[in-house]
Every structure is written in C-alpha cells, then in structure tokens.
C-alpha cells in the first residue's frame, strides 16, 4: 500500500542524481573546516613563509648587480666603464671588469642580473648585454637593458653629432631548465604540493564513510555508485583548481612571480597529476581500517615527497644518493610539469614532459588498480 500524498514522483535520471550528489559533495567540502585548513590555508602560509625567508633580495631598492667585461681596454670602453660605475642603479660585481667566461658564468648562476660587454676597440660600435634567459622578461633584465639603452643614447650624443656610434646588442644565455627565479620555483612547487596533498589526504573521507557504514548504506539504495564516484572526483578537481588560482594570485600579486602559461600543457599536467595523487589516496584508503591509520600513511608519504621532490629547493642541490629516489617520485614530475607549463610556457610535445607524465600515469594506474583489488577482496557486500 502506498502512502497518500506523493511527491509528484521526480523521475530520476542520471543527471539529476549527479546534480544532487555533486551538491552534497560541494556542501560537505564547504562545511569541512579541515579541508579548508589543509587545502588552502596551510599551503598559502607555507608558501608565504618560504618566500619571505628565501627570496630575501626583493627589488624594492632599485639596484641591480651587473658584471662588466672589458675585452681590450681602449679609450671608448674606459669612458663607458667609468660612466657605468657612476650610475647609482648598477652595482658592478667585484668593482672592476672581469673576463668574459667569468661573467657568463655569473649570469648563468644568476649571481648577476646581466653582464655588459664593452666595445673591443675605439672603432667598434657595439655594447653587448648578456642576460639569463630565465630572466629575459624579468623586471631586473628589463631595467638593465632600459637603462643601458638610455645610457647609449647619451653616449651617442656625446660623440658629437656623428651618426649613432654605439648600439646595443642583445644576447641571452640559458643554463638549462632548473635555474629560474626562486619565487616562480617555489610557487609552482607549492601548487604541485598542495594538489598532491589534496589527493593523498582527501581520500580520508572514504575511510570515514566506510567506517561509519555510509558506503554500505548507499549500496542498500539503487544509487549509482559510479555517479557517486564521479561527482566526488569532479568536486576534488574543482577544489584543486581553486588551489591553483589562489596560490598563483598570491604568488604573482604579492611576490611578483612571473608566469608564462601554456594552457594546454597545464591542463594535461594538472589532470594527470591530480588524478594520480587521488589514486594514491584511494590506494591508502583501501587498506586503512581507521582514519588515524590512513592519516599516518598519508603523512609519511607526503612528508617524504615534500622534501625529496624538489618542491622547496631544486633536486640538484640535494645529496647525490637521494637523487635516484627523487627521480621515481610522482611529485618530482608533477612539480616539474607545472614549472614547464606555468613558467616556461613549454608546449605539450616535449619528450621530457611526456616522460614525466608517463611516470605519474604509471603511479596513478598502479595504485588505482591495487586499491580496487583490495576493495574487491574484502568487499562487505555481494556484487549483485
């Protein structure tokens, strides 16, 4: 017998079910204070602390350090040298001209913002500026070339009406993929870390739901568990997008990070990375009986990865025996991938990038399969 009043009988369709499940997930996430603390507040604070401590030389003071190379001293070069030394914005490293090799090294290692190579003879008419490629568009580089440009115009004027004698040649040196501004480095590392942690810690919900019997409860209904999983995943990806945007805004607006984003690469790296770390969390949840056990495992893994994957400091700065470990961790490649796509504007068709994506995919696929297997093994319910 049916009860008298009826609810007009909403016809369920998959979309309605997805919508209701997604709304529930959204509310659960918004109301879970832990999620906000660990997912948003914690990474922001961590990033701010690291940036304040380690990127100390902020360019508030308009001073940039340059190297000067004077290949064969001549009247013209000497004149320019004295002029440059006199400019308050330039600080000439070691106070005198150095050999070209030395200057190039300094540029590579970012010990100076630029190297100025003076004309080789009184007749030569070019001044060469060496700038690290990572900084090409950076504020310091722009400032140096701008100032030098002005300076050369002055010099030309002083050459008494003669046709412009000196012009500025522009060369850049790149030192490979790892030396970029620390702010950019840390920002992308932090984004990678917080998304990774979101995945590794976030699946604690699953343990909690299982412990409370909620999974069992849902299986007593005709609810489509596939749709439930999907809505959960979409919610998690959205949360990660919020993390990316928020951290990027803070990095760019407060700490002057420079982002050159290749959107297509970014989307691929983001999706693969986020899904892989969620798979890792799913795997942890499959063998953790309690939330405490889960958090223990997640903490150990995230702690190890945090320091071994080049999030805060380049992997190259770590002891050599650690580097092989770094090279198998997924976070290494996630951070690298985000750097490629958010700082170097790298296109998707790069071998190195695909190798990284491959490693992450492997981690994701293997842990997901293992997790599913463990869940099946001890499934409380018959799969009917």
């Amino acid at each position: 017998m049916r009860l008298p009043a009826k609810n007009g009988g909403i016809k369920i369709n998959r979309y309605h079910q997805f919508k209701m499940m997604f709304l529930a997930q959204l509310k659960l996430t918004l109301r879970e204070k832990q999620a906000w603390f660990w997912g948003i507040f914690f990474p922001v604070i961590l990033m701010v602390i690291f940036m304040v401590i380690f990127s100390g030389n902020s360019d508030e003071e308009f001073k940039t350090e340059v190297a000067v190379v004077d290949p064969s001293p001549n009247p013209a070069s000497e004149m320019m040298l004295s002029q440059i030394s006199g400019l308050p914005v330039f600080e000439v490293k070691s106070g005198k001209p150095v050999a070209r090799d030395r200057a190039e090294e300094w540029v590579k290692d970012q010990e100076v913002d630029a190297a100025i190579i003076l004309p080789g003879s009184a007749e030569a008419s070019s001044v060469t500026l060496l700038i690290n490629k990572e900084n090409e568009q950076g504020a310091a580089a722009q400032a140096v070339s701008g100032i030098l440009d002005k300076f050369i115009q002055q010099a030309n004027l002083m050459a008494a009406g003669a046709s412009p004698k000196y012009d500025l040649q522009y060369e850049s040196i790149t030192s490979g993929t790892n030396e970029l501004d620390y702010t950019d480095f840390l920002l992308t590392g932090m984004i990678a870390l917080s998304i990774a942690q979101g995945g590794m810690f976030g699946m604690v919900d699953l343990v909690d739901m299982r412990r409370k019997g909620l999974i069992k409860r849902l299986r007593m209904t005709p609810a489509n568990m596939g749709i439930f999983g999907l809505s959960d995943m979409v919610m998690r990806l959205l949360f990660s997008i919020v993390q990316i945007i928020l951290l990027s805004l803070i990095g760019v607006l407060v700490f002057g990070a420079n982002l050159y984003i290749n959107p297509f690469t970014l989307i691929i790296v983001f999706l693969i990375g986020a899904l892989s770390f969620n798979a890792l969390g799913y795997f942890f949840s499959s063998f953790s009986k309690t939330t405490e056990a889960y958090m223990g495992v997640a903490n150990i893994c995230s702690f190890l990865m945090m320091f071994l994957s080049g999030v805060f400091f380049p992997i190259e700065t770590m002891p050599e025996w650690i580097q092989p470990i770094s090279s198998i961790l997924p976070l290494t490649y996630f951070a690298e991938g985000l750097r490629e796509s958010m700082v170097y504007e790298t296109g998707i068709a790069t071998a190195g990038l695909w190798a990284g994506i491959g490693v992450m995919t492997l981690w994701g696929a293997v842990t997901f399969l293992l997790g599913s297997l463990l869940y099946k093994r001890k499934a409380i319910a018959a799969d009917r």
Partner: protein
Amino acid sequence: MTVLEVRNLQKSFGQIKAVRDISFSVNAGEVFTIIGPNGAGKTTTLEMIEGLVSPDNGEIHFGDLDWNKHAVSIKKKIGVQPQSSAMFDLLTPEENLNLFASFYDHARSAKEILEIVNLTEHRKNHVKKLSGGQRQRLAIGLALISDPEIIFLDEPTTGLDPQARRNIWDIILHLKELGKTTILTTHYMEEAEKLSDRVCIVDQGNVITLDSPSALIEKLTDEREIRLSFLDGEGAAVDADIFSKVLESVSKTEREGATLKIWAAKPEETLLDLFKFTKEKSFGVEQVSIREMSLEDVFIAFTGKEWRD
C-alpha cells in the same frame, strides 16, 4: 499474504557461525520482531535479507522476487535503517533526505518524511548536532524516503532514553497504521511485547521460537509468582508460609523477612485462601502482587539462560 520468506539461512565469518539456521516468513502489514541477545545473529540475518551479505546457504524470497534476478526491484521495495544508522553528518536532515530521494524514481518529499519522524523543527541543523534519538528518527526517515513496502529497522532504540524510545515506538505504530510491513530487531523484551504482531526469538544463530507475544507467554506454565509483605513482621510471614505450603495448588514458597513468595498454579484460589487466613489471624498485609509472565520468561524457559539486556 506473505511478503518475505527466508529458509534455512546460514552464514559463517571464518570460525564464527553467526547464523546457523534461521527460517521465517513475514506477513503483509505486520510488525515482525527478531529479538535476541547481543551476537545472536540478528544483524547478520537482516543484512543477508537486505542483500548486503550473501548467505552461505538458504533462500530469500520477496514474493516472486529474489536477489539474483531482481536486485534493483527489491532495493526499490525495501527501506533500511541499518544498525550503524549511517548518514552525512555535515548535511542537514532535509539535505540528507533530498539526496536519498534522488536515488529513487518515486520518492516522497523530504517535508512529508520530516513530519512523520517529527524532525521538521530540526530540518536545518547539521546532523552532527542532533541528539541520539533525533538521529535515529532521521535514520528511519531515510528508510522511508522511497515509500517502501517493507521496512527494516535494526535496533532503532538501543542506547536511547525512555522518552526517545517511546517516540520511536510511536513512529513504528504509525507505520503499521499506514499498512507498512516492519521488520524490527531489538534486545528490549518490553519493546517486542508492546509493538510486535509476531516475535521471533533467536539465540546463537538459531530460531528459538516464533509466535505472537501472547501466544508465546501462554505456552509457558500456568504457574504464577505471588508476593505478599506483612505489616506484622516476620512472625506473620512464618505463619502464612506454613499455612500456604499445605495448599493444593502451591508448588513452592520462599520467605525473606516479612516478605513471602508463593508459586501457585491457580493464583486466584490461592490468594482467596490466603486472605481468609490473614483475616482470621487479623494480620495486616502491606503489599500483594502477582507477577505477570513476560517474553523474558519465555526466553528463560526456552534457553535455560538468564536474560540480560
């Protein structure tokens, strides 16, 4: 009309034989109670019927439907309040109900259900802020959202205070009025007696006995325990003890100070004789009672064990 029939259910978890042999059938519109001590196998039995645990042996039929072929149809027909009463703690009762409603194509409105389980006032509080009784009522509400024909309630009143328990009894009686079939488990004898049309007593995975509460009690011996306390102290009790021992229907007496307990097959006659005696001797009697037999006695009679809840 039989809506559910289970035959020879068995389930072991490793070495533990949770359910050894359980069979019964449930009629449409009745409140059918499975009662037994902790670990008797009640939850395991329900979970097999609800399709969560596959039985090692035995059959389960919902009319013409069974789990192998008609899982979705059965899921739409039944409403379940599991013992863990799982729900989303950070959602409100209303949100929980609306979410569960989306799983069914014919669901009742959250508003109606909130009225039935008397939670309208608390519909906008987070579930984690609800009291035990309110939470349990919501769990029942979630079982009702699909407007099911058969409702399973696994120990809905365990751990609740008397008032909260009574509120849940009211809901169960209301469901009966609406013509629903309810399958209830409990380990409160009083509750089983009060609510059930039929009671199935289980112990150690076996059905001990099954019938209506009154029929079960009637099956017990006619003997009743009479209790008398005397105003005039121990002396009067000793005299009355000697007198009652010779009465025909009395099988046994027991005295403790001024209180006398008498077991009699015909309690009314024995009382009449006793009152004649006390009037003759002009003894003052302070308290008289005949203890009613309860399901507890049924359990004791069938298992030879004490009943503890």
